[in-house]
C-alpha cells in the first residue's frame, strides 16, 4: 500500500517536472531591484515617433538589437483559439524576437486576476496580451495601471466609463461578424435554393450563449441582418445553450433538433451559431434530415469548419466567418513591441485606424466569409500576409 502511495507521489512530481521540461525553457531572470518598467531600459532610449509608422512590420527597427521580450498572454480559459494564437506567436517570435507565456484562471475570475498579479510581479514581463472577461474589466484595468506595463487587448476591447476604448485592441467586431455571416447566406441563397421561396416559410435559428456578451452579440447581429432582409418575418427562434450548461457539439445538436422539429411549418432555414461547437452539432443534425438542402448554416470561427472541409464535408454548413490567427497575432505582437520599445503609446499607436471618440485604436482584424472553395486559399494567404512562414 505504501509502495503505491510512494509511486503516486513520484508519478505526480515527475508529471509536474515533465510538464515544465517539455515547454520552451523560459529561465526567469531574477527580479530587477528597481521599477518593473526596468525591462524597457535597453541603454539608449529610443526617440518618440513623429509619424504613425510604429506598430507595423515595416518599422525601421532592428528587432534583435534589444533583449528578447517576454510577453504574457492572459486569457480566461484554454481553447483552440488560444492554442492557435500561441502557435502563431511562436513563429512570429522568431522573426521579431519575443516569446509568450500563458496565464489563465481556467474559467475562474479570481484565479485569473491572481495569476495576472503573479506574472506581473515576476519582474521579467515586458507586456501583456489581454483577453479578459468583460465583467471584471474594471478591476483588471486598475491592476494593469498599477503594474505600469504595456498591453494590447485581444478580441475584447476595454472601455472606460464613457464607452471609449482605452487600450489598443485586436478585435473582432462581434456584432458585425454575426451580421456579415448571415448576410452572406442571405445574399447567396439563390445558389442553394430555388428561385421563388415563399418568405413566410423562411425561418432563422440562433444558436446562442447568452451569458457571454461577445458571443451573444454575434447572434444579435445575425438577427438584425435577418430582420432587415425579411421585414415583418417573425420566424426567429433563439436556442440558448446556457441552460444545457456546456459549449459542445452535442448541445448544438440537441438545441437544433428540438427547435427544427418543433417548427415543421418552416421549410427553409437560416441558422447561425455563435460558436463553432454548436454549428458542428447542428451540422450533424441537419445531415439526418432529408430537407438538408433547404438549410443554410453559418458561424463565426473557421477552425472546425476548415477541418470538416479538409475531411470532405459538404452539407448545410456552407460558410463561416474566418478568423485567421495571424491576422490577430501579427499586428498585436508588433503593436506590443512598439509599446514596449517606447516608440508608441496607447494614444499614439495606429492613429490612422482609430474610431472617433476612442482613446486607443481598435484594429478590426481583416476577415472575410469563406466557403468550401475559397477557404484554403484565403486562410493561407492571410496568414502569409501577417507573418506566417
Amino acid at each position, binding site marked *: 500500500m505504501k509502495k503505491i502511495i510512494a509511486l503516486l507521489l513520484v508519478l505526480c512530481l515527475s508529471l509536474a517536472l515533465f510538464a515544465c521540461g517539455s515547454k520552451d525553457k523560459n529561465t526567469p531572470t531574477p527580479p530587477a531591484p528597481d521599477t518593473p518598467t526596468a525591462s524597457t531600459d535597453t541603454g539608449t532610449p529610443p526617440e518618440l515617433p513623429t509619424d504613425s509608422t510604429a506598430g507595423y512590420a515595416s518599422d525601421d527597427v532592428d528587432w534583435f538589437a534589444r533583449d528578447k521580450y517576454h510577453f504574457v498572454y492572459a486569457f480566461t480559459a484554454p481553447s483552440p483559439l488560444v492554442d492557435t494564437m500561441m502557435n502563431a506567436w511562436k513563429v512570429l517570435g522568431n522573426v521579431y524576437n519575443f516569446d509568450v507565456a500563458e496565464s489563465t484562471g481556467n474559467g475562474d475570475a*479570481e484565479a485569473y486576476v491572481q495569476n495576472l498579479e503573479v506574472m506581473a510581479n515576476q519582474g521579467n514581463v515586458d507586456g501583456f496580451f489581454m483577453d479578459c472577461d468583460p465583467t471584471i474589466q*474594471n*478591476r483588471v484595468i486598475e491592476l494593469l495601471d498599477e503594474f505600469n506595463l504595456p498591453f494590447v487587448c485581444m478580441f475584447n476591447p476595454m472601455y472606460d466609463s464613457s464607452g471609449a476604448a482605452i487600450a489598443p485592441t485586436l478585435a473582432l467586431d462581434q456584432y458585425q461578424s454575426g451580421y456579415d455571416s448571415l448576410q452572406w447566406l442571405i445574399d447567396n441563397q439563390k445558389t442553394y435554393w430555388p428561385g421563388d421561396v415563399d418568405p413566410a416559410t423562411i425561418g432563422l435559428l440562433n444558436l446562442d450563449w*447568452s451569458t457571454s456578451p461577445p458571443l451573444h452579440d454575434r447572434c444579435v447581429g445575425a438577427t438584425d441582418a435577418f430582420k432587415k432582409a425579411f421585414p415583418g418575418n417573425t420566424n426567429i427562434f433563439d436556442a440558448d445553450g446556457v441552460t444545457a450548461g456546456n459549449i459542445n457539439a452535442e448541445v448544438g445538436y440537441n438545441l437544433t433538433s428540438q427547435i427544427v422539429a418543433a417548427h415543421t411549418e418552416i421549410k427553409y432555414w437560416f441558422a447561425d451559431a455563435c460558436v463553432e461547437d454548436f454549428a458542428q452539432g447542428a451540422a450533424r443534425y441537419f445531415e439526418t434530415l432529408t430537407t438538408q438542402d433547404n438549410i443554410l448554416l453559418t458561424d463565426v470561427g473557421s477552425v472546425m469548419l476548415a477541418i470538416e472541409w479538409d475531411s470532405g464535408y459538404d452539407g448545410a454548413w456552407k460558410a463561416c466567418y474566418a478568423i485567421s490567427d495571424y491576422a490577430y497575432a501579427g499586428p498585436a505582437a508588433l503593436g506590443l513591441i512598439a509599446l514596449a520599445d517606447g516608440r508608441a503609446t496607447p494614444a499614439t499607436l495606429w492613429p490612422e485606424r482609430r474610431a472617433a471618440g476612442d482613446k486607443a485604436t481598435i484594429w478590426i482584424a481583416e476577415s472575410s466569409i469563406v466557403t468550401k472553395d475559397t477557404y484554403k486559399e484565403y486562410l493561407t494567404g492571410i496568414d502569409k500576409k501577417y507573418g506566417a512562414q
Partner: protein
Amino acid sequence: MEQQKSKFRIGNLFKSKMLTLILLLAVVVGVFTIMSKGQLLNPKNIRNILQSITLVSLLTIGAGMLMIGGYVDLSLGGIGTMAALITAYALRAGAPWYLALIIGLVAGAVTGAFNAVLINELRFQPFIATLATASITQGLGYIVNHGQQIDIDNPVFNFIGTQRIADFIPYSIIISLVLLAVYGVMLKNTKFGRSMYLVGGNPQASLLSGLHPKRVSYILFINAGVLSSLAGILLAARLKTANTTGIVNQQFSGMTAAILGGISFGGGSGGMGGALIGILILNCFNNGMTIVRVTPYWQTVASGALLLIALAIDFLRISRTKKVS
C-alpha cells in the same frame, strides 16, 4: 476518564498529522522554489499567495466544519455567487454598506437552513440535496440581474476588497485568519466543538449521549452558508463586480484544502490548524505552477492529482493510527 482518554488520542493524532502536513508544505515550497529559482519566495509573490488564501479559507472553514460533522455540501459556490449578486443589487439600490452586507449574509444563512431542512426533515442524501440547491441558487443568481453583472462602487467594499496593510497584507486576510482562529479554538476547546466530532464520527453514539445531531446539522449548514456568502461578497469586492460565475469554481478548492489539512471525509476528525496548512499547501502549489509556467491543461491534471495525493496522505495516516491502536 473517558473524556481524558479520547482527548489524549485526538491529541496524538493531531500532533503527527500536523507534522505530516508541515512536512508536505515544506516539500511543495521547496520543490517549487528550486524549480522557479527562488521566485516563489519573492516578497511580491508571497503577497500574492496571501491574497489568494483569503477567499478559499472561508470556504474551507465552512466545508471543513461540515465534513467534520459528516456532511458534504455542493452548493457553497452557488450560495456565495448568489449572495454577492444580492449584496451588489442592494448596494446599487442605495442601501448602506452594512445593510447590504447583512442582507447578503442572511441570504446565505437562509439557503444553508434550506439545505439543512432538505437533509434533516426530508431525509435527502446531502449530496443530492445540495446539488439541487446549487442549481437553484445559480438560477436565482441569474434572476437578480438578468444574468448581467452588477458593478460595485462602494468605498468600504473597495477598501476591504483591494487594499493592503503596508502594501503587503491584504485587509481581507485578517478576516480569514481571525475566523480560522475562532473556529479552531471553538472546535478544540468548547463542548459544542467537541460534540461536533462525535456527531460526525458516530451519529448513533452522539444521540445516545444526549447530543442533538439535528441541531448541530442545522448550525453547520447555516454556518457554511454564511461563510460562503462572505467569501462570495469579498470576491465581488475584490473584482469590483458581482457576476454569475463568482465563487462557483472555488468550492472544490475549499474541499480539497480541508482534506489536505486532515479533515477526514468520513467525519469525526481534523481541525482548523490543519486546514490552514492545507490551504497554504494548495495555494503554494497553484502559485508555484503558475510561476513555473506549467500549461493550463497540465495545471488541471496537477490539481486533480493533488487532491488524490491529499486523500492518499489521509489514508496513510488512518492506516498508521489503526496499527497504533
